[in-house]
């Protein structure tokens, strides 16, 4: 195909994050960051917590960023973003500030700075790329790691079945700050993600996006399966896609047909121990995870009406590629 016939080549598109960076094949975070910066446009200033995204985009003297970008520490992306925003206000500049961090830098070590930023109502969009463990340091459990998942600090063994605790319900904690807008999104649903970014960009005040971003290395799936795995997380109800306004649920992405969590779990090495034949604990933990998905579906009312596969608002529609297991 000649370049002119390739619709992508003919469509000029702003790229905040250039190609050529050093992310792994199939990196969900790199994809998410590209989608977020594409949707946000050029008039932004980014802050970035320490983590894979910082490492793979800026090995000096190279940088993959086409927008101004500031990295300081692991736990202060929200606080430096607060400072950038305060300076812009002082100078009468109107660029939007986007703070970025992984789940470690957001759920755990950077949580206080994030809470402070939200409470002080800084005009910042905070984006958390959630890959559910400390991937940059080699796959250690975080407050976001799902129950029973294997990481290098929650390994399964005779006494343990992976992570003992639950994934922190960060979105509810964010909602408790009663900020104008907070949402969850997934790299498997780029249209939805873009819409949520644009929505957040229009709001003058603190907004928050939690983007589910698979890590092939950490989750143990092939790099080519990133989208399928991310989609299953949504379709099972384990990672519900919701929007919150001032702390209240404003909309959800409905699931036309529930997919059993086992179909999501069995594709990832981090849950392989949950499929051991001779271990009664495996069955139990799978049931725990199914119960968590059922709870999410119940809580957010994810069961949609009807089963029109062409309705673009459902998680399992044809337009989104159809059920991953078909």
């Amino acid at each position: 195909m000649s370049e002119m016939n390739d619709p992508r080549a003919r469509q000029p598109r702003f790229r905040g994050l250039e190609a050529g960076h050093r992310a792994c094949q199939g990196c969900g975070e790199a994809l998410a960051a590209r989608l977020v910066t594409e949707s946000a446009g050029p008039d932004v200033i980014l802050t970035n917590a320490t983590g894979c995204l910082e490492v793979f985009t800026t090995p000096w003297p190279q940088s993959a960023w086409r927008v101004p970008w500031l990295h300081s520490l692991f736990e202060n992306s929200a606080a430096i973003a607060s400072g950038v925003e305060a300076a812009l206000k002082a100078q009468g500049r109107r660029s939007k500030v986007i703070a970025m961090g992984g789940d470690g830098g957001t759920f755990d070590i950077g949580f206080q700075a994030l809470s402070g930023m939200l409470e002080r109502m800084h005009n910042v969009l905070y984006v958390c790329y959630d890959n559910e463990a400390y991937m940059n340091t080699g796959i250690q459990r975080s407050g976001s790691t799902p129950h029973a998942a294997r990481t290098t600090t929650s390994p399964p063994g005779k006494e343990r079945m992976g992570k003992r605790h639950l994934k922190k319900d960060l979105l509810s904690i964010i909602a408790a700050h009663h900020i104008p807008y907070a949402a969850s999104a997934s790299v498997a649903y780029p249209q939805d993600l873009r819409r949520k970014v644009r929505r957040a960009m229009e709001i003058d005040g603190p907004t928050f996006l939690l983007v589910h971003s698979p890590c092939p290395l950490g989750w143990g799936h092939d790099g080519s399966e990133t989208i399928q795995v991310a989609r299953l997380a949504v379709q099972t109800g384990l990672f519900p896609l919701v929007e919150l306004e001032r702390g209240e649920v404003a909309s959800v992405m409905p699931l036309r047909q529930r997919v059993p969590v086992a179909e999501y779990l069995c594709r990832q090495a981090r849950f392989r121990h949950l499929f051991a034949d001779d271990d009664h604990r495996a069955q139990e933990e799978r049931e725990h995870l199914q119960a968590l998905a059922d709870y999410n579906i119940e809580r957010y009312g994810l069961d949609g009406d009807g089963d029109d596969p062409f309705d673009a608002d459902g998680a399992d529609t044809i337009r989104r590629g159809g059920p991953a297991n078909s």
Partner: protein
Amino acid sequence: MLEALEGSQAIARAVALCRPGVVAAYPITPQTHIVENISKLVADGKLNTELVSVESEFSAASVVLGASAAGSRSYTASSSQGILLMTEVLFNISGMRLPVVMTCANRAIGAPINIWNDHSDSMAVRDSGWIQLHCADNQEAVDTTIQAFRIAEATELPVMVCMDGFVLTHTLETLEIPDQDLVDRYLPPFVFNRMLDPQNPLSLGTLVGPEYFSETRHLAHEALNQSASTIVDVDREWQNLTGRSAGGLLSVEGPDDAKIGVLAMGSVVSTFREAMDCLAAEPAKLMALRAFRPLPEEAIRSACAGLDHLVVVDRALSPGFGGIVGGEIKAALSGMKDAPQIYNVAIGLGGRDVPLEMWPRLLDVPKQGGGFRILDLEPAKLGEMS
């Protein structure tokens, strides 16, 4: 015009005269009055700045980092545990060459918890790459605060203005707050070439591997060393405008032919100045070390020429080593021809009072000889505490 002001109030006024774009701070004793006074100036419409009342000192330092990178003149203040909580960010601010100014209202570090003055906090961040200037009185603190923005913005290095907690921050003194016009002439608006700007997108704070890291450290070291001449120039210019020097790198008082000298930093210098005037004691030189970073080795050496004995006063110590300033002065004078014998003592730890009578006791130290010790230790109390 002379005004009677509390130290913290005077610092808040000095900061306001510098027209900072962003101020971020968190309360901690004895720094609190500074941020309170700044908040009041903002509330009364006397200071037009973005005041960010953060949820920790860690975020205070992070906010001024971000604000400075975005091109605003930025200020923060803290003490003690707050300085320690900021530590990680302080290294970042200097590593990124951001011209932030902060006041350190010097206070001891726990445990045991102690809110009173010594220099443990700024000493703990000695190697963070900040310029550290110590003030002997509140006039020096006011003048140094204004100079600090000039120094920081000329060198692209952060400046920590150290003033003794309570002894200076909470003391009412008569001092002169300069006119806004004078400060505006002295301190032009901040222009930052590496400012975060979508029109000219730069990446700040990138990953540097072994192939370039040593060079970044070399440049940081060179920058600190070279800032010494800026500190001198900026103080001289201030003196031309106001008639007052804030002490350059190091100031020396006392008779030229004195054979003994005392080197100290901070408010005890004022105490010793007073003691030199009113107590009968042997003739001695008083060296007020204003710049602890960069350490002005040459100035210290030339000030020590002709001395037989030098007593170095520390307001903090490095357990297992001894006095921190003492150790550095020994290093600075090593290899010097006819160098004085150096004695090192710590005094005034955790707010223990340093009275005028400390001056003759210090001059007596060479007669007793010996290595580093806490001079105002009360040994009888050790029994009670064991």
